[in-house]
């Protein structure tokens, strides 16, 4: 009798659990029953970014976007894909200051690493994507590299025509958007869906904060310098939290005569030399640094902020308040800051994405 009561209780408990479960199955995959792509977040401190209502990420859309991202069909001469300059092993950036476009032409901006992009959509500014803030959404950003002569040099009608003639793409577009007649909007929508899935959250520093591994004293000290308003003073723009950027545009004093930056878009003199604040994640994979790729190593970057910043009309107050002497970190402090910054590099993201790229 007793065992039957136990059995009944177990049965009831299971019934209760199953009948009340409202959440999607948590199995580490991105599958859901309704075809939507399930974004993976490590814990509740990661607040979901806004996803545009007219372009939710679906499994079919993400897969199509991934295929397009790696396909040189988007370039004028079928030689360059998005992934040619945004390489998975470099956290979807490039390891040269300026990447070669079609016909060997080069632009003037370093290929931005691509991860944790969509949180820019949580900011109220219309300037969200690219170094100079020219794109208001991920979808719109995609137009520029496809068409710029020093990047993929194609034109949108040609891209659509090539995809329409392709043996596989019309069916994939039908699967993703319910329409096998391809238009350029759906091309950008699919790539944007894929890019939203590039989420990096598993660096050693994250694991230290989750108490999965101990935090070395050197990293703890570096983290303190990063946060300090005195020593490192990094946290105003590369804010503490999960993202290590506030997605704002700032002139960090890189050059005495800065490239126009955000002013290219706004036409305002007070935006001269302002560029998007990049995340401090994955720096081990994203050298060289800055919008022009002019700083070769992470130590160069620390040394730059330590003693080589310039003040001009639009330089951020967080730089000017330390000038002309700079941060004046000791060698020990610089080493600790380096240790902290390196700990933010998520090899599971870079290697995992690279593995996926090779095997898909």
């Amino acid at each position, binding site marked *: 009798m007793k065992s*039957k009561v136990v059995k*009944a209780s177990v*049965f*009831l408990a299971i*019934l*209760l659990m199953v*009948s*009340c479960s409202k959440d999607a199955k948590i199995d580490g995959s991105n599958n859901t029953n309704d075809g939507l792509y399930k974004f993976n977040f490590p814990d509740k*401190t990661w*607040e979901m970014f806004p996803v545009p209502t007219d372009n939710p990420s679906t499994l079919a859309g993400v897969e199509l976007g991934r295929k397009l991202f790696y396909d040189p069909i988007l370039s004028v001469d079928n030689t360059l894909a998005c992934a040619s300059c945004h390489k998975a092993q470099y956290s979807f950036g490039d390891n040269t200051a300026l990447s070669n476009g079609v016909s060997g032409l080069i632009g003037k901006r370093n290929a931005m690493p691509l991860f944790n992009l969509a*949180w820019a959509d*949580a900011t*109220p*500014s219309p300037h969200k994507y690219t170094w100079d803030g020219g794109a208001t959404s991920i979808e719109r950003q995609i137009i520029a590299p496809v068409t710029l002569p020093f990047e993929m040099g194609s034109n949108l009608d040609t891209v659509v025509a090539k995809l329409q003639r392709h043996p596989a793409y019309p069916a994939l577009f039908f699967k993703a958007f319910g329409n096998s007649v391809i238009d350029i909007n759906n091309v950008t929508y699919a790539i944007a869906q894929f890019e939203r899935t590039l989420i990096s959250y598993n660096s050693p520093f994250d694991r230290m904060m989750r108490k999965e591994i101990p935090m070395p004293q050197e990293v703890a000290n570096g983290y303190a310098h990063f*946060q*300090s*308003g005195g020593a490192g003073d990094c*946290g*105003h*723009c590369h*804010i*503490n*939290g*999960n*993202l290590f950027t*506030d997605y*704002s545009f700032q002139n960090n004093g890189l050059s005495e005569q800065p490239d126009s930056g955000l002013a290219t878009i706004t036409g*305002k003199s*007070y935006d001269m030399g302002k560029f998007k604040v990049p995340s401090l994640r994955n720096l081990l994979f994203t050298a060289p640094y800055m919008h022009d790729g002019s700083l070769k190593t992470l130590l160069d970057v620390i040394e730059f902020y330590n003693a080589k910043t310039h003040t001009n*009309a639009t*330089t*951020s*107050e*967080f730089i*000017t*308040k330390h000038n002309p002497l700079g941060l004046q970190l000791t060698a020990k402090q610089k080493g600790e800051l380096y240790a902290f910054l390196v700990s933010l590099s998520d090899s599971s993201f870079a290697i995992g994405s690279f593995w996926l790229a090779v095997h898909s």
Partner: protein
Amino acid sequence: MKKIIIIILSSVFLFFGCGEKGAPPPSPAPAPTTLTIKINYTYKGQALVLNDKSYVNKALDTFTISNFVHYLSNVTVTNAQNEKYNLANYNLSYAEYPSTNTIELKGLKMDNWKSLSFLLGVDTVRNHTGAQTGDLSPSKSMYWNWNTGYIFVRFKGKLSNGNNIGLDVGGDDNLVAQSFDLSSYNLNKSNVTITLEMDLNEMFENPQTYDFKVDATSIHTNTQPEAAKIKANMVDICKIVSVQ
């Protein structure tokens, strides 16, 4: 027989297991009310122009303003019986982005509300609750990571001598409370819009003249004495323009 009992038990469990716990039976809902707070930013009574216009304060400093951001939280109304209703909102408003200058608060019961109050900042409890979500998310860049708590008010600009101004005011002691008498208005209606004027010149005078030649051009801790000075001045930064 036992099987039947189990099935009955299962049904009972299932029934109760999924019910909304403690939900009272639905009562007739009061008329839905939306209280809208709209903020107009000004400097000496004129509409604020960011970056492109020079302003002068009482100490005769000349500067442009590039950025003004603040929290507005805990909108509370009080009726004739002195009953208070706190809408428990936490909104971040940017002078630069008009969409953030209108705060719509729903769920307020219709009543002839006699007074309105709110905080320019974050109340002490939530200020020390750690990283939160929505407008209180650290990703909004208004979270002081080296000193727990939020930046309540951010003012950025540039002095005519080219020096940057960056004033971040926060800390429990620097929380600014605002309250207004509404007794002359009829608020017994379902949609009320209260338009406020927030005059940034008030940060720099009355009672204490803020002089950028002497006072800090950069405030980034809650303990800097200039933060308290700005807080004291901000007590009269808002006034009601209209109630409709």
